[in-house]
């Protein structure tokens, strides 16, 4: 039996421009002509992917894992035909539908019904396919009542559910999915996972990129680990995940608590992220300290309502908190901004000792523009925080609440 998908030494090169953003202006080009320069010296080659080869049999589902910047998204973009490889080739023996984002092409002015048709057709569904599944899509999303309401009046959760519902009814031979499961509420995530399992058990092939290792493990029999654009490991999912964990351990984050990002891709607005404990850059925190997580961003288009979302997970990957500024204070500014920083400050860190991981979501009111999974890792040292010096039992407390009051009214 032929594999449904074959990758033969696929490589992708980007030329990074170190100044003036990621697109050219004619002036630069004309300037180059005048100076008789062949290429600007500020241009640098960067291989986002190098020599990736593997093949997938029909019905197999493959997880693609790796750290941020390992080349996962680039690989998916090549598989989705969005961008061509620089070298190598891919042979596909089935239709590929890709889901690099939920709700691609959603337009806020159009109604829910209209957006289902628009989004469906952008994803490659025929109108009669959409007609056929329309009621099921709406039911899956649970937005029956708002069918003829413009999308801009939907809550972001409803938008996501509607978007995912459309995608869940795609019927290609190969489905490429990027991290989209990370959004929405837990119940809905599970529903989507079940729907996807239906897809893979019906003989279709799924390529699934995720940082959610338990989702990868339950959905994919085989996984590929990428590291710095190269294929580091391929094997059954539990082995690959183990390799990934080892890699993460090796790369224990620098204790300075500052990460600089290569910001030369225009769709990656975050250029720096910091973690501060008691206002000093450090990834060593202690129980009850003032913890600040700060990102610096620069976007091409101004954002009306920049949104910072933070998820902090324990060493097992189970979320401890997941918050964004809208929950607490609404919009942070009434002006559009294109550059600046946003901080989340926890004045009194309510975590017990251990190792924690931080996911950062950055976006506007409608979408995540950039998501950094496991961006930071920080440790929390034990500290005394009750006046007695006694501690509540860690086994039955996930968080400690600092200011619980006790009162006895004797009669």
């Amino acid at each position, binding site marked *: 039996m032929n594999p449904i998908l074959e990758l033969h030494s696929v490589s992708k090169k980007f030329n990074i421009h170190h100044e003036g953003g990621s697109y050219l202006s004619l002036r630069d080009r004309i300037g180059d002509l005048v100076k008789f320069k062949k290429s600007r010296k500020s241009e640098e080659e960067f291989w986002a992917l190098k020599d990736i080869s593997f093949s997938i049999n029909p019905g197999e589902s493959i997880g693609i894992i790796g750290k941020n910047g390992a080349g996962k998204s680039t690989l998916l973009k090549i598989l989705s035909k*969005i961008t061509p490889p620089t070298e190598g080739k891919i042979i596909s*023996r089935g239709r590929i539908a890709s889901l690099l984002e939920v709700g691609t092409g959603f337009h806020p002015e159009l109604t829910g019904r209209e957006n289902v048709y628009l989004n469906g057709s952008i994803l490659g569904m025929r109108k009669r396919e959409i007609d056929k599944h329309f009621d099921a899509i709406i039911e899956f999303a649970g937005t029956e009542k708002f069918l003829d309401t413009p999308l801009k009046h939907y809550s972001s959760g409803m938008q996501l559910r509607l978007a995912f519902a459309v995608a869940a009814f795609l019927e290609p031979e190969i489905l490429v999915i990027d991290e989209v499961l990370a959004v929405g509420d837990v119940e809905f995530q599970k529903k989507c996972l079940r729907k996807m399992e239906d897809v893979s058990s019906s003989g279709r092939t799924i390529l699934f990129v995720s940082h959610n290792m338990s989702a990868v493990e339950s959905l994919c029999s085989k996984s590929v680990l990428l590291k710095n654009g190269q294929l580091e490991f391929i094997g059954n999912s539990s082995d690959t995940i183990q390799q990934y964990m080892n890699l993460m351990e090796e790369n224990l984050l620098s204790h300075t608590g500052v990460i600089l990002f290569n910001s030369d891709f225009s769709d990656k607005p975050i250029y720096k992220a910091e973690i501060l404990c008691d206002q000093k850059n450090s990834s060593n925190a202690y129980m009850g300290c003032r913890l600040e997580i700060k990102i610096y961003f620069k976007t091409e288009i101004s954002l009306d309502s920049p949104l910072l979302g933070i998820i902090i997970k324990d060493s097992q990957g189970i979320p401890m908190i997941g918050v964004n500024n809208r929950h607490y204070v609404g919009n942070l500014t009434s002006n559009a901004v294109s550059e600046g920083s946003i901080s989340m400050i926890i004045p009194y860190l309510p975590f017990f000792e251990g190792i924690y991981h931080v996911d950062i979501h950055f976006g506007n009111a409608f979408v995540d523009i950039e998501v950094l999974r496991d961006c930071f890792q920080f440790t929390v040292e034990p500290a005394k925080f009750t006046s007695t010096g006694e501690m509540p039992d860690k086994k039955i407390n996930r968080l400690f609440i600092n200011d619980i009051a006790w009162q006895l009214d004797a009669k």
Partner: protein
Amino acid sequence: MNVTDDNDYYFEIKPKLAFSLNLKELIEYKELFYFFTWRDVKVKYKQTALGFIWAILQPLIMMAIFTFFIGNAMDVPSDDIKYPVFAFSGLILWTVFSSGITNAGNSMVSNAQIIKKIYFPRLVIPISSILVSIFDFLIAFMVFIVLIVLYHQPVNVLKAFIFWPTALLVTVIATFGPGCLLAALNVKYRDFRYVIPFLVQALLFLTPVIYPISIISNVWLKYLLVLNPMYAAIILFRMPMMKSAPDYSLVLISFISGLILFFIGLAYFRKTEMYFADLA
């Protein structure tokens, strides 16, 4: 599932595809043309009090201005057509061209978010923007018919049935070339964002839209002006109303100019479209 090399879905993804129009793929995605056009038409008139009336109002007001200042005040001749009808006939086609290349030119940039996330033949986007302009034309065309009746403009009906659709087709060809070229260039060099409105404005006065070519006496200047591909479209559109025949060689030059632009635009777009997602 049957997985063989000769099934319908077999394809390869390679670094550089040989140039091909890939018409088959475009036809496969025909519904997407409809949905993009439909989206743009809907969004364009959502939350406007006047709605579709805007499609009529713009050429109508332009016509009134030109009629007053140029037709009456300057007494520009109009190929024996009543000046308001003359001006309006030029302007409704011109509006297709100008809004067509403006929207098509900006379309790749304004749809960058979609381009970066999903594959479909990229030509769908500029073509759909041009289809939006044609939708507006069809509305304005009804007003044109009303004007003809109001001004008692004689029309050769048989000629009208031949030349009006032909003129529209020539307009589409004339719009497609520069539209696609600008769309592709705009992805790479955002300078074209500023070039487009200026270009459209300048071309309006450099085309015999609001005046007949006969007022130009210099032969070479005439040839230069008719390089504007819209000249052919507008003359063809006016033919059913004109008493004398136009200079066919000028019409032919203009049409060929449009065809050349069409192929240049198409070729450049096809050549660069693979890298749009990296640049947008």
